[in-house]
């Protein structure tokens, strides 16, 4: 089973996640898109682990998974806090960083 299909799939997933991040209007949607990107990276990592046959890749992937999970949880919690504070989760309305 050659490697490139896996890479292609993870590349596609990553890009989909990226596009989702750009397109989604509300915070939760963005976090979900981010979740997609995490899945893509995990798949990529697993694929390369398989390619190199070294078990360590799996351990690293596991850790990456954990950290990413923590990240997404915090992301979602922020979305909640944001909603409660700004009464909206729509990212477009949060443009106070406007130059």
């Amino acid at each position: 089973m050659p490697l490139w299909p896996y890479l292609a799939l993870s590349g596609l997933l990553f890009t989909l996640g990226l596009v989702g991040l750009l397109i989604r209007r509300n915070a939760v949607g963005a976090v979900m898109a981010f979740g997609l990107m995490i899945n893509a990276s995990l798949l990529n990592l697993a694929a390369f682990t398989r390619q190199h046959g070294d078990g360590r890749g799996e351990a690293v992937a596991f850790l990456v998974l954990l950290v990413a999970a923590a990240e997404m949880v915090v992301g979602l919690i922020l979305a909640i806090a944001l909603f409660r504070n700004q009464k909206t989760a729509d990212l477009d309305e949060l443009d106070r960083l406007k130059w």
Partner: protein
Amino acid sequence: MVAMEMLSPASCVLIALGAPLLGALFNGLSGDRGARLAGRLGLLAMVGCAIGSVPLCVRGLLGETAAEELYVWGVIGDLKLTIGLEVDPLSAILLAGWVVVGLTVHLWLLGVEGDRVSPRSAAAFNLVTVAVVLALIGDGYGSLAIGWGLLGLCSHALLDGSGRTEAVSGARKLWVIDRLGDMALLLGIMLLLAQVGSLEYAAGRAADIPERLAVWSGLLLLVAAAVKGGQIPFHYWWASAVGAPAVANALVHATAMGMLAILLLARSPALFAPGSIPGQLAVAIGGLSGFMGIAMALGARDVQRGLGHATTSQLGLVFVAIGLGAREAGVFLLLSHTFFKVLLLLCVGRIFPEPGREGEAKGLRRRLPVSSWALLVGALAMGGMPPLAGFWGYAAVLASIYRIAGDLFVWTAGCALLLPTAFFGARLGLIIFKEGEGESEAGRGERESPLLILAFLGLGLLTVAGGAMEYFRGEGVVASLLAPSQAALPSLALVAVPGAVVLVGMGLAWAANRSGKKEADERENRLRHLLDEGFYVEEFGERFIGRPLGSIARWLRDVVDVLLIDLLCIGGLALTLRGAGWLLARTQSGKVWSCALAVALGTAVILLLLTHLS
């Protein structure tokens, strides 16, 4: 042992330059507190300078050249810019002359003005000394240029310091013209530097400069000398220089500037060789300014302006001498001219403290016997009375011109020039002397201060005995009397003819004076006005050079500045910046997705780079 050490050139130079410099600094910086001491301090500085320069002069006059490198102030690649010392007979004589003049002027200053000498002018006088000494003893065009510029500064300071309105505007005009001279000087030096690779005179003399470059640098240096010496095209600065107090004119304009101009020409014989174009041009300018100068002097309304134009004519004669290769004679004439001109100017300064008021010379003889007598001696010397220095100077120049150039026509023209000079000298002496007879209530209490008498005595002696120097110099006119001259004219004639011409001139003056003193003055006709205004050269320059340049400047201002720069460049720039700002603002929408977009594109670019660069 210490004496020997003291005599070494370097230490002498240190004293000669140091003393006046210190004097200038003290006077300049002390302000009102030091007002009373200004005069004395100036004199003290001058004495210090004299002490320093006497050994140098003695060494120089004995014919021994002391050359030494004092200070390297710049090394650019293989080009070394140094200030060095080179005292040869030429600079020694000039230095001696300058020291004497400096001392007398300071004595005069102390004697006449005493405590009222303004520190500013005292500082300026000292600075002039520094400038001249630096130029004289310098071994290259560098120090000459420094002296040159410094002199311009001092003349402006003195003119400006006098406080009179027309003096201040004159100062500005003088400054501009002086800058023109400086520019020409610097350009000439640069040309030489580029070709010769060093500023020293020695290198200038040694190197074989290609003919075309020699001509150009020669012309530039000639222009500089002409400006400084007040020769024809640039003589009109005398009109503005008159505003200065007479003593300043005496020291700075008459002697220092002339000395430097002649020094420049004398120091670059290769450029002004008799046959070369600059040499011939120097002769032409010299002759022209000689005749026009004396004509303007005769027509001048004011005594000082007359003397100024007379200086122009005498320096013209020196230019002619150097142009034809008679360097020694030229320098000798310069020296003798310096002595009687300073004497004249000091007397005029004493008699007419305010320039332009000639009338109140009545009762002069009783009031100021010494200055009036000194004035008479100076005027006659300028006229070229045989026993006095003036005559010997003129005779030496004419003799050497004839001997070297062997050109009868120039010799006769020279003698012709002596006629009006003699007439002018005699008339000046007679007017002042005759008018002085009457009683005059003004100035009764004045009495001659001893210092003043001392100064006049010194100068008078020199003007009288100047001729002896001629003999002392060896192959002078007197010497030529003894040694049979192989020239066509017998040497006796070389002396006799000028003498005769002078006497005739003086006789004419006496006759004119006795007969119609009155109608001579009243003829305010166009000729007199023409002469007085200096042949309207200034107005000519104004109309044909000043006005066109002005209109060009205005056009530039209107079209280029306003339209091109303001509207297009700056306006355009502002517009583009505002547009760019607006565009950029749109990208900074603050929305999360636009930032994420930028990040995404960034990653894409990085990926491409990684693949591409590897």
